[in-house]
C-alpha cells in the first residue's frame, strides 16, 4: 500500500492532480461554511492569486521583473466585459474565460518578444510604461470601451446543471456571488496545476537555467529568447484569466481599477509570499485581500474614527511588508521552507 502511494507521489502529474482535488474539497468546505460577504472576498483572493501565480513564475523562475501585470489584467477584464455586455447574447462562461486568456496571451506574446530583448530594470521599465498606458486606451476609445466610467459586466445566471450539482454536493442553494467565487477558485486550481506541472517539467528547468546564468544556459543549447518569451506569455495568460475573474467579481471593467497600484500590489504579494512559490503567491493574495479589511475592522472596534481606521490599513500593510523583508527575506513561504529543510537536515 505504502509502495503504491509512494509511486503515485513520485509521479508529478498524479501528485499535482491529487493536491488539486484536495484543494477543491477545501475550497468547497470554506465557501460553503462562510458568509456571502466572505465568498466575495474569496473571489477577490482567487483572481489576485491567479495573477500572482503567473507573476511568481515569471519573476521567480525566469527572473524577469514585470511591473505591468495590472495592464494585462485590464486586457482580460475588458475582453470579458465586451463579451458579457448583454445577458441574452452572451457566450458560455467557459468560452468567455478562454477568450479573455487567449486575447491577453496574444498581446502578451507581442510584448514578450520586445521584453525578451531587454534585461533587468529595462524590462521593468517597459512593462511599467504598459501599466500606465493601457488604462489610457480605454479613455481614448470612449465609445467602445466606456471611458472613465468603464463597462459594466452582466454576470450570467448560475447554470441549472451547476446549481444542481452544487445542491447535490452541499445541500445549499447557490447565490451569484458564491458562483463567481467557485469560478474563481476552479480557475485558480486549474491554473496552478498547469503552472506547477510546467515548472517541474523541462520547460521549467530551462527557465531556471536562464534565470541563474544566461551564458551557461545558452552554452547548454537553450534558446534564451524563446525561453523568455514563453515564460512571459504563460504569465500574461494567467493575468488575462485573473482579469476575467475580476470583471465577473467586480461586475465592472474601469480604468481606475487598473492603475499602477494594482501591478505593484501583485508584485508585493509575490514578494511577501515568497518568489517562485505558487503557495507563496496564494499567501500573498490572501494578505492583500484580507489584511486591509480586517485591520480596518480592528481599528474601528478599537474606537478609531473611520478616517483613521481607513488610514491604518495601508500603514499595517507597509509595516508587514517591511517586517517580512527584514525577518523573512525569502518571503513567508520561502523562509518557512528553508527553516523546514534546515530542521530536517539536523534530525
Amino acid at each position, binding site marked *: 500500500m505504502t509502495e503504491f*502511494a509512494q509511486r503515485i507521489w513520485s509521479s508529478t502529474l498524479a501528485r499535482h492532480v491529487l493536491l488539486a482535488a484536495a484543494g477543491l474539497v477545501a475550497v468547497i468546505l470554506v465557501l460553503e461554511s462562510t458568509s456571502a*460577504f466572505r465568498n466575495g472576498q474569496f473571489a477577490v483572493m482567487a483572481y489576485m492569486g491567479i495573477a500572482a501565480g503567473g507573476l511568481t513564475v515569471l519573476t521567480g523562475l525566469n527572473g524577469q521583473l514585470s511591473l505591468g501585470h495590472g495592464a494585462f489584467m485590464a486586457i482580460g477584464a475588458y475582453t470579458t466585459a465586451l463579451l458579457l455586455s448583454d445577458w441574452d447574447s452572451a457566450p458560455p462562461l467557459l468560452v468567455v474565460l478562454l477568450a479573455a486568456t487567449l486575447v491577453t496571451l496574444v498581446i502578451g506574446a507581442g510584448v514578450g518578444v520586445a521584453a525578451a530583448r531587454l534585461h533587468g530594470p529595462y524590462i521593468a521599465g517597459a512593462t511599467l510604461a504598459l501599466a500606465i498606458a493601457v488604462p489610457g486606451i480605454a479613455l481614448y476609445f470612449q465609445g467602445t470601451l466606456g471611458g472613465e*466610467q468603464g463597462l459594466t459586466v452582466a454576470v450570467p445566471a448560475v447554470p441549472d446543471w451547476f446549481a444542481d450539482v452544487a445542491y447535490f454536493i452541499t445541500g445549499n442553494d447557490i447565490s451569484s456571488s458564491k458562483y463567481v467565487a467557485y469560478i474563481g477558485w476552479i480557475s485558480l486550481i486549474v491554473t496552478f496545476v498547469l503552472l506547477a506541472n510546467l515548472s517541474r517539467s523541462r520547460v521549467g528547468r530551462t527557465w531556471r537555467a536562464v534565470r541563474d546564468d544566461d551564458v551557461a544556459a545558452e552554452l547548454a543549447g537553450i534558446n534564451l529568447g524563446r525561453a523568455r518569451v514563453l515564460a512571459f506569455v504563460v504569465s500574461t495568460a494567467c493575468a488575462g484569466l485573473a482579469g476575467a475573474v475580476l470583471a465577473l467579481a467586480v461586475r*465592472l471593467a474601469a480604468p481606475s481599477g487598473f492603475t499602477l497600484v494594482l501591478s505593484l500590489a501583485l508584485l508585493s504579494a509575490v514578494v511577501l509570499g515568497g518568489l517562485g512559490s505558487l503557495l507563496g503567491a496564494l499567501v500573498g493574495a490572501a494578505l492583500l485581500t484580507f489584511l486591509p479589511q480586517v485591520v480596518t475592522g480592528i481599528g474601528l472596534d478599537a474606537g478609531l474614527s473611520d478616517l483613521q481606521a481607513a488610514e491604518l490599513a495601508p500603514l499595517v500593510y507597509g509595516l508587514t511588508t517591511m517586517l517580512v523583508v527584514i525577518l523573512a527575506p525569502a518571503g513567508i513561504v520561502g523562509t518557512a521552507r528553508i527553516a523546514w529543510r534546515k530542521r530536517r537536515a539536523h534530525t
Partner: protein
Amino acid sequence: MRTWSRRVTVFTSVLTAGAVLAACGAGGRPDDSEGGSADVVGVTEDSIKIGAHFPLTGVAAPGYSEIPSGHKAYYEYVNANGGIHGRKIEFVVRDDAYNPTQTSQVTNELVLSDEIFAMVGGLGTPTHSAVVDFLNGEKVPDLFVSSGSLQWGDDVESKPYTFGWQPDYETEGKIVGQWVKQNMPDARVGLFLQDDDFGEDGEKGLRQYLDKQIVATERYTSGNTDVAPQIAALQAADVDVVLGFNTPSYTALTQLTAKKLNFDPKWFYSNVGSDPELVGSLLARFSEGAVKDGSSLLDGVLTTEYIPGVDTPDDPWMELWQQVWDEHGGDAKLTNYRVYGMSQAYTFVQALQAAGPNPTREGIVEAIEQAGTEFDGPALAPFRYSGDSHMGISGLRVSELKDGKADPLTPVLVTDIGDTPITEDNSGAGNDSPPEDGIPDPIS
C-alpha cells in the same frame, strides 16, 4: 520520495488549517436573519443601520473625505435628541479610495456583512456605477448618491431603488448656458470639461443655449495634471469666457496655468469645482507657496449654488449646522463638504420620518416618491422625486465669488433634464428655515 510525502502532509495541513481559520473568521450566522420572521435588514427596535462608500484615502480624499463626518455629526445630533421613531441611526463608512474595484468590495461588505438597511450618500460616478446594479438587485435602497450624473434618476424602471440628490449636471449646464447667453451674448465661449459623465452631461445642458457661441471645447482626463495644452488651445481660440465642468484640483490647475500663459478670460466653474476654501489651499500647495491668498485669486469667478454654505454664517440653516458641528463634530473646522454631508443627512432623516414608524426597504422608496417634492430642507430648490423620476434638487442660482464668498447674481432657477424650460423658483424652498429642534417633522 519521503520528502515529498512529508511536504504534502505539510501542505495539506496548512490548507486545512487555513480553511478552518477562514471558516472561523466568517463570524457565525450567515443565513439566520433571512429566516421566517418579518424583520427588516438593518432595522431593530432601537436602531437603524445605514452606510456608504467614500474616498477616505487616495487622490480624491481631500475634501470628499469630510462629507461622511458631516453625516455622522448630524446623525449623532438626531440620536442625542431621541432618534427617529425611537431608533438611533448608525452610519457605517467604508473607504473605497475612489477605486471602483474597491467600491464593489466594500459595498459587498456593507450589504452582506454589516447588513445595512440602506446606502446613503455613496460618492462618485465611476465608483457608484460599479455597485448600482448590485444594490438594485439586492433591493437595497440606494439613496442620495453624491454625484450629479443623470443615471441615478432618469431611469426609474431599471434602477427603482436609486435616488439622486444634488442638481444633475445637465440641469446645471442649462442654467449656466442660459445665463451666459443672456448676459454675455457676444462672448466667445470655451469649454473645459472632465472627460466622463460629468463633462458630458454638463455639455449637453450648455449646448442647448450656447451651441452657436462655443468656439472651443477642451477635455481633460482626471489624473493627468498637465492642462497647459488645453489652456493654450482655449487661449488660441481667443475665448472671452471659459466654462469649466471640472473638480477642485483642476480649478486650481487651470488658474495657475492661465496665469503662466498670461491668459485672462472670465472663468465660470460648476459648483463641484468652485469651493473657494479648498481651491485656495490647493492653489497654495500646487504653486509651492507662490500663491499665498488663494481664495482671493478666485475673485470675480462665476459659479452656482444649491445649498447655503460656510460663506453665509447667518443663514438659519448654517446656524443649525454650526450648532450641530460644535456639539458633535469634533475639533476640525466646519467646511462646505461637511455642510453637504449634513444637508444630505437631513434629507435622509426626512425620508425616514416619511417612511413611518415601521420602515421597510420598499416603504422608504415609496415614501420618497410620494412625499419627496414636499421635503423642506436646506436646498434652495425643491426635489423632483416621483414615481417617474428619481432626480434630486431641481435647480440652483448663479453667483460670483468675492473674497471667498458667493454673491448671488440671479434668483433660484429651476428646470429639469431635456427641453423643460428654465423658470424662477416660486416654491419658496430657498426661504424656509429649519424647525426649532433642528430635526425634520414627520410629514402629515
